[in-house]
């Protein structure tokens, strides 16, 4: 089972009204995007961390690990924004010289980066407030209240169901490949991955046929009643 999903079903806030949780986290998310205010970002980040650790009962270490998931993307993009290249020297507050050009940090990019970093973390916290307390069955109820097209809701439900169904199988195949040195070198690992994807696909096709039969037995006429 996926970690975030597991927490969503087992924390102490699971039983609260789903619409309330949804509205609160989405409101926080959008206010964080709309208003650029460093203090506000910090309040959101700390506040949500407190809600999730104190009220929902998620261990702090685990939550921090979750927050660090996108850190590599964050780090690379922040570095990209932070550093600029120019031939004039007076723009930079911190620089190094390579030949005729300078690579350095300007005041504007530094300001952008600080806001960006804090905003990303605040928004990530708001998303976690949603993802960690709202299990998928409640999300589907929320989507229904929001009058999303039926076909989208059905797809969300079915895709979620199939992900969970095949995740286990997928993990077992992955372990089997590791045990057989399937990732021993680059050439073999490409072949292993191709094999894994293919057997996953064939398993899915056979499951699809079985499901069709079982649905027909239940007089399926094209509607899933969600």
């Amino acid at each position, binding site marked *: 089972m*996926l970690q975030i999903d597991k927490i969503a079903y087992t924390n102490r806030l699971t039983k609260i009204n789903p619409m309330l949780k949804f509205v609160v986290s989405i409101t926080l998310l959008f206010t964080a995007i709309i208003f650029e205010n460093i203090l506000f970002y910090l309040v959101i980040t700390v506040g949500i961390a407190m809600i999730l650790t104190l009220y929902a009962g998620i261990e702090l270490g685990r939550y921090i690990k979750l927050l660090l998931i996108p850190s590599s993307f964050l780090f690379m*993009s922040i570095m990209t924004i932070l550093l600029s290249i120019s031939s004039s020297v007076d723009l930079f507050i911190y620089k190094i010289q390579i030949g005729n050009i300078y690579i350095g940090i300007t005041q504007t990019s530094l300001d952008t980066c600080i806001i960006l970093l804090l905003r990303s973390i605040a928004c990530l916290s708001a998303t976690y407030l949603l993802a960690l307390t709202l299990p998928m069955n409640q999300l589907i109820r929320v989507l229904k209240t929001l009058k999303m097209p039926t*076909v989208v809701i059905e797809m969300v439900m079915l895709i979620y169901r199939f992900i969970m169904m095949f995740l286990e199988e997928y993990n077992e195949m992955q372990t089997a490949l590791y045990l057989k040195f399937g990732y021993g070198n680059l050439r073999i690992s490409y072949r292993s991955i191709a094999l894994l994807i293919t057997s996953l696909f064939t398993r899915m096709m056979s499951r699809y046929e079985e499901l069709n039969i079982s649905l027909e037995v239940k007089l399926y006429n094209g509607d899933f009643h969600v």
Partner: protein
Amino acid sequence: MKRFKSPIFICSLLLLTFFSVREVQAMHIMEGFLPKGWAVFWTLITIPFFILGIRKLNSIFKNQPNKKLLVALAGAFVFLLSALKIPSVAGSCSHPTGVGLGAIMFGPTIMTVIGVIVLLFQALLLAHGGITTLGANAFSMAVVGPFVSFGIFMILRKRNVNIGVSVFFASALGSLCTYIVTSIQLGLAFPDPVGGVAASLVKFLGIFAITQIPISTVEGIITALVYDKIKEYEGESILNEKIN
């Protein structure tokens, strides 16, 4: 002394950047990273494609309700592919966007709907991508990627290029275009204070697109292998009448 210190500092930062590539997942723009204007802009661009996809799905489902399961399976398949780690050059890891395979088999507009739902799940279940950046990520991964893959596949097939080669180019270029669009989105949103949008585009393309060339190539190779195997198992007929 100070002049000596700064290069070391920058060099170590650069080294860190290179080492951090090891852990990089496919480049979905993370939650809250884009300013509000751009987030809204990319969402608005994606919506028409999404509606088109829903219409297509509805018309398919009306005649063949059984296909609902098949489309959902394709979505789960794309999600699982995105959990897969592929070793690439220099010890870095990536995972396939998976949409190339889907676009070839199911058609691009359907992949838009599936892609959006998969991105939503990635944001909620894997903390990968985000809700506010859903529009931007969907545009690169669920609109541009599939359409490029599908277009290239069709063109190459019409010219009677070998099927493996066409699958390779379709998925590799589709995946590369996804990354290029992501870099363009980032470059436009964060113009360089010195060189403007052009400089920031160059920077982001350099870091997020050039480094992805080997990874896209790998995805192309693997997709071609998978396509070949699927054909072997299922016979070619099932691929052509999949959904349409």
